[in-house]
């Protein structure tokens, strides 16, 4: 527990009579990629909401880098190095790819009550943003409005915005959602490179990607974590096979 970057204890969220998250104890160790898998309706979205600060837990705590962040608002968590991407592409479609990443850089460069200098001519913002786009192989597309990027490019940009804050932890909510095989392979390669330097908490449906990338896997079913362990151990776990993997492997 002590070397956990992100740890929850007894995290619970109810919606009326439905217990969406039931006393979740999760520990994400520093370094590597920790994946959370689970069938639809298992409570993954609720868990993400509570981790990122959009949902207030009914009980339980969230600790991040040794600090209790249970009651911190979303923006303050981001400031502390908790970067996230969204399941449904969530970028500023009306601005360019470079603007989007530059804004993310700006969010981590002190306050923005600066009214005089042009932000678009500010190399302190543009240069790091360019570097991130280059790393994502989006530099050729930097000056296009995001609405003109392909779906896969938007998914990559989404990760780039989360990376701009140099996060300690990257929470990725189904980064492969809706991508084709080629785009999917590109994102998997990207995540493989990122996890060498940044801890990633990955929520993903694509089992091939999860087992290719993960150093640890937790399985969420009906609001509870039924198993946590190495990918190999999770594959062997009979309870997991029964609850979840059986269908996938049959397919």
């Amino acid at each position, binding site marked *: 527990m002590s070397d956990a970057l992100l740890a929850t204890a007894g995290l619970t969220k109810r919606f009326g009579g439905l217990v969406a998250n039931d006393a979740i104890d999760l520990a994400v160790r520093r370094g590597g990629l920790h994946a959370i898998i689970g069938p639809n309706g298992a409570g993954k979205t609720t868990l993400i909401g509570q981790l990122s600060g959009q949902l207030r837990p009914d009980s339980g705590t969230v600790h991040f880098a040794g600090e209790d962040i249970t009651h911190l608002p979303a*923006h303050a968590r981001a400031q502390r190095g908790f970067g996230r991407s*969204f399941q449904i592409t969530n970028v*500023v479609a009306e601005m360019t790819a470079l603007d989007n990443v530059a*804004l993310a850089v700006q969010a981590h460069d002190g306050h*923005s009550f600066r009214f005089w200098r042009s932000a678009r001519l500010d190399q302190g913002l543009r240069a790091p943003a360019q570097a991130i786009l280059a790393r994502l192989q989006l530099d050729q597309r930097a000056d296009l409005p995001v609405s003109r990027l392909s779906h896969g490019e938007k998914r990559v940009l989404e990760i780039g915005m989360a990376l701009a804050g140099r996060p300690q932890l990257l929470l990725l909510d189904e980064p492969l959602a809706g991508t084709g095989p080629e785009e999917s392979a590109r994102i998997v390669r990207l995540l493989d490179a990122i996890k060498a330097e940044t801890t990633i908490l990955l929520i993903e449906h694509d089992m091939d990607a999860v087992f290719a990338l993960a150093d640890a896997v937790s399985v969420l079913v009906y609001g509870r974590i039924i198993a946590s362990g190495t990918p190999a151990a999770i594959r062997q776990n009979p309870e997991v096979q029964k609850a979840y993997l059986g269908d996938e492997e049959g397919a």
Partner: protein
Amino acid sequence: MDNPAVRRCAYALLGVLAVLPLLATAIGDPFYLGVVTRMMIFGIAAMSLDLILGFAGLFSLGHAVYLGIGGYTVAILSHYGVTNGFMHFGAAIAVSAFAAFVIGLVSLRTSGVFFLMITLAFSQMVYFLAISINAFGGDDGLEISAPSALGLDLREPLVLYYVVFATLALVLILGFRLVNSRFGMVIRAVKYNESRMIAVGFPTPRYKLTAFVISGAVCGLAGALLANQTLFVSPSLIQWVRSGELLIMVIAGGMGTLVGPVIGAILYLLLEQVLSGWTVYWPGIVGALLLVLVLVGKRGVIGFITERRRAA
């Protein structure tokens, strides 16, 4: 703005307004000087609304309240014998900013239609307050015995014209800086996708509130200028119809361009001037024109000017 054509348009407009008095003097009709002065004052007010509407995406239906607060501040100070112009303008800006802070603190908790209703409700509250305080003229309004003493004779139409012109130019140029600054980028991104800006680490409410306060303060300044021109303030200044007119100026001129709303204000008051001479039903004609404008091009009059330039 990012669009250089919009910038060129702004500088061209300032150029025309700078030399216009020479023309008016040549015609020998100082009346027009007053008309254009009024247009520029409403241009400043419309720009202030554009900051929150066109850039931050906040639909306020109570923006005239700051026009009224700025105007009444000048009138009330001079009512009590304060003549110092710096006091007048300083107080008008400060009181409007404070009012915007209070109104914004409450109304920015909502968005969309609810934001519109709350800003409307606040402006109606102030409107009825202005009607009910008999010490300040109530329904009849309050006369101002002399313009703000700035070391310039604001009674002189030409002097007032250039004071207003200088203010307009200053607001426009500072406005361009602001919307392109780091602050400007945040409020513009919030307009499109606030949840993303929060997730990326911006405490967005305080940026929206700051934009709201700046907007209110600038509109209050316009109100103080207006009071100096008319030497009279009345509750009609605060009426929600006025707020609606400001919205029309911004939308017809072109939201999110700053100079567009100035052009919108000029055209609106020009139409009012010309059409009201013909018929009392002139607002109907303005309504029809606005309808056509919005249906044909969502970017307003400025859209037509800059698009045609690009095509040429």
